[in-house]
């Protein structure tokens, strides 16, 4: 490391001017087979909803391939797959939502497969640096049980990383602080 990195600053309360856009919530185009809504609520340490957060997601397609600029692991062949979702609102109500598909398994550092997961960045006023978490799927019990990242999370906290099935997709609430605080990672 020759040059130090540029430090982070908060995204502030007015991020909706610059970051969200109409198509931003669409990780896959409308009508993609198997697509669903993934979202939930965001809470602060007092249990109050956070209306001014920005949530970004990054994931593989169902075949385990990324829409990566540089082609790591081979490019996704899913039509219109962006792999990236961004949810934020000018007058938010403390919820977030993206439209996506369940990712496939992707390799771990030692070649084993990881359980299906989505990387998440959380930004908000009052957060001086992003927090990173991962979404896993509660209905992938077998894969989750063998996942090396989940395995490194204290057992009593793993449930904070599990999206629960709903009528139209999956629900994943984010708790920035307090009881049932979401597990955040150092990347």
């Amino acid at each position: 490391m020759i040059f130090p990195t540029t430090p982070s600053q908060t995204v502030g309360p007015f991020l909706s001017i610059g970051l969200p856009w109409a198509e931003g919530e669409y990780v896959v185009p409308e009508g993609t087979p198997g697509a669903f809504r993934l979202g939930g609520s965001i809470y602060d340490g007092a249990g109050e909803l956070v209306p001014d957060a920005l949530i970004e997601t990054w994931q593989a397609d169902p075949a385990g391939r990324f829409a990566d600029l540089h082609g790591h692991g081979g490019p996704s062949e899913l039509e219109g797959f962006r792999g990236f979702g961004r949810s934020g609102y000018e007058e938010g109500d403390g919820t977030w939502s993206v439209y996506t598909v369940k990712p496939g398994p992707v390799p771990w550092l030692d070649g084993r497969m990881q359980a299906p997961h989505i990387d998440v960045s959380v930004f908000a006023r009052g957060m001086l640096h992003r927090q990173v978490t991962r979404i896993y799927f509660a209905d992938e019990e077998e894969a989750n049980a063998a996942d090396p990242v989940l395995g490194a999370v204290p057992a009593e906290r793993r449930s904070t990383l599990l999206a629960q099935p709903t009528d139209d997709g999956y629900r994943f609430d984010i708790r920035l602080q307090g009881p049932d605080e979401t597990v955040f990672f150092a990347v």
Partner: protein
Amino acid sequence: MTSKPFWDAITDTPTSYVREPEGAHPPADFPPYKSTQRRHPKEPLVYLPQSITEITGPALGSDRVAEGDNDLTRQHEGEPIGERIIVSGRVLDTEGKPLRNTLVEIWQANAAGRYRHKRDSWPAPLDPNFSGAGRCLTDDEGRYSFTTIKPGPYPWGNHHNAWRPAHIHFSLLGRAFAQRLVTQMYFPGDPFFAYDPIFNSIRDEDARKRLIADFSVHDTRPNWAQAYTFDIYLRGPGATPFEEAY
């Protein structure tokens, strides 16, 4: 370069990004900035080794950037009020290598310090000719450039007589999830630096200075616009002993 294990020859990109030292970024809990109180995790972060999900990143290009998106002074019928400025620089990694074709997004207040946002209640005038958002992709040398107006400082409710120094918000995607960065660019000599808890949340003085743009007489355009330069460094290739042992 001896860091070949961190480099993928086929994609010509890193396979692992350097872990930053303590203090490279502000702490999540910084009491002088009151909003951090309920918005920081109290549990320790869990160490996440970087797998393919973390070393890949979105390619937001033509679907996000249109011609002219980097000129915030030409988004309306007339020109915005204020000092016209050019803000340019390079996006590099910590090895000094330019990041090509990567998305830079900015947003800011107008010359009076007012944001075009429904929840900004500061009674300074909105400018009908200024929206305050811009985007561009870096070129082959990692360069970006925006034409805009200099934003004004504005008061906020953090403490008695609190004012934010003038700033432009920057969002960088880099080329990997691990490189994602949101920050703010400040202007040299701002009198509010000493009193702003957001700026001072970066405890290291040299690190704070990296967020202050340089005035550039060289890039200043005669009879047109003042110029500021602001280079941004994202994490480069590298690994920790812990990761190598994994």
